[in-house]
């Protein structure tokens, strides 16, 4: 008798949409579990797209959308995916989503799709998306998976935009295309930093961010 009573599963309370646990899925990747500086994923596109703020902005939006909806899709399918083709199915979902995004961009904002043509393909291979599918979406419900996708996309966006601001302001003297270094500075001998235009500068900047982030929060030292 008592065994059946113990065997009866406890009634699960439905978790509110934005409970503290769900809110943490959105905020953790911004700092404590940042995909680039802590999980060290998605660094390649962070180097390629950040020469200027505008492409970084568009890439960020694309990654947030793809990560969130890929997480959602895989989470909905998680119980039916055959074990042996798990990663292939994940890849197909990501590739299909990215191709859809690409087709829509080419139809409605052609200039932008030309600029991003190389990077769109980079999203498919972005480790953040595959990483979150494996680490989270495969084992969690759809809504938390969606939030996790959004959170990680935003964490990626934060670092991307930060790097892009430094690289554009110091490497080209502009912000979103608007010149912000006054002409008298150039006349006095100020020169735009040529290294900032190269991807190597993104590497240096990300390294500095990792260092700064871990020195202000000792819990994060040695976490990866």
């Amino acid at each position: 008798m008592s065994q059946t009573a113990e065997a009866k599963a406890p009634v699960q309370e439905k978790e509110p949409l934005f409970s503290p646990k769900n809110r943490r899925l959105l905020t953790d990747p911004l700092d404590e579990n940042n995909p680039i500086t802590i999980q060290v994923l998605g660094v390649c596109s962070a180097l390629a797209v950040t020469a200027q703020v505008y492409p970084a902005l568009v890439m960020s939006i694309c990654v947030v959308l793809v990560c969130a909806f890929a997480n959602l899709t895989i989470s909905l399918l998680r119980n039916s995916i055959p074990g042996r083709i798990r990663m292939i199915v994940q890849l197909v979902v990501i590739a299909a989503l990215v191709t859809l995004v690409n087709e829509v961009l080419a139809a409605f904002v052609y200039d932008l799709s030309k600029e991003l043509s190389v990077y769109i393909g980079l999203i498919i291979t972005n480790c953040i998306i595959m990483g979150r599918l494996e680490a989270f979406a495969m084992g969690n419900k759809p809504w938390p998976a969606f939030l996790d996708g959004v959170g990680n996309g935003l964490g990626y966006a934060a670092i991307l935009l930060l790097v892009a601001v430094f690289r554009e302001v110091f490497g080209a003297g502009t912000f979103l295309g608007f010149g912000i270094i006054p002409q008298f500075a150039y006349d006095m001998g100020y020169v735009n930093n040529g290294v900032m235009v190269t991807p190597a500068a993104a590497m240096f900047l990300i390294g500095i961010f990792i260092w700064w982030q871990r020195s202000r929060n000792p819990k994060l030292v040695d976490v990866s």
Partner: protein
Amino acid sequence: MANTNSNAYTFTYATIMTLIVALALAGVSTLLKPLQDAARALDKKTQILNAVTTVEKEAADAAYAKSIKELVVKEDGSVIDGAVAFDLDLRKEYKKDASKRQLPLYVYTNDAGAKNYIIPLSGAGLWDAIGGFIALESDLNTIAGSSFNHVGETPGLGAEIATPWFQGQFKGRKFNDASKKYALDVLKGKGNKIEPIEQYANKVDGISGATITCDGVENMLKKGYDSYAAYFKTITN
């Protein structure tokens, strides 16, 4: 739920998933194709016009219809009637035998009646194809302007060929030197002495760290100019 690890289930799942994804992507692509084709055509018209004048994308269609006349010529200088210049794929044409090539040419007439000849360009950058348009004044030697594009050059390096500063320096330069020999040279690196323009009419500044792309631009310009040399002879005489 069937055993998700059985062979039969795996095979069926893979088949159905492939069918669904293929249908969805094909469907979206077909639906959006008219919009994409229109966007691509507008972009090409804007680029052609940008070789001679600045034009806003919204006004490109009207400006193109008003000021551009299309021609298709052959490398021997003859004009082909009935071919549509805009639809020709220059990369494919260059792969053909020289005698079979159909070369588009765009003639721009401004409000004052002066003519510019816009040559389409096709070449190879460091990673992938590069292209563009170069506009000549009616002396068929002085450059009126240029617009370049690329598929996958490195941002900040090879991709600089599509920037206003690189394209702008071609205006006023000349293809041939005083002895009528082809001499247009894209110099290595940036910051070379190229002024006064009368003395350095055949020289254009390069891009630091993008030598291969700049060589590609130089070769593409020579190839383009040479392709139309025979036709230009027929209109100067």
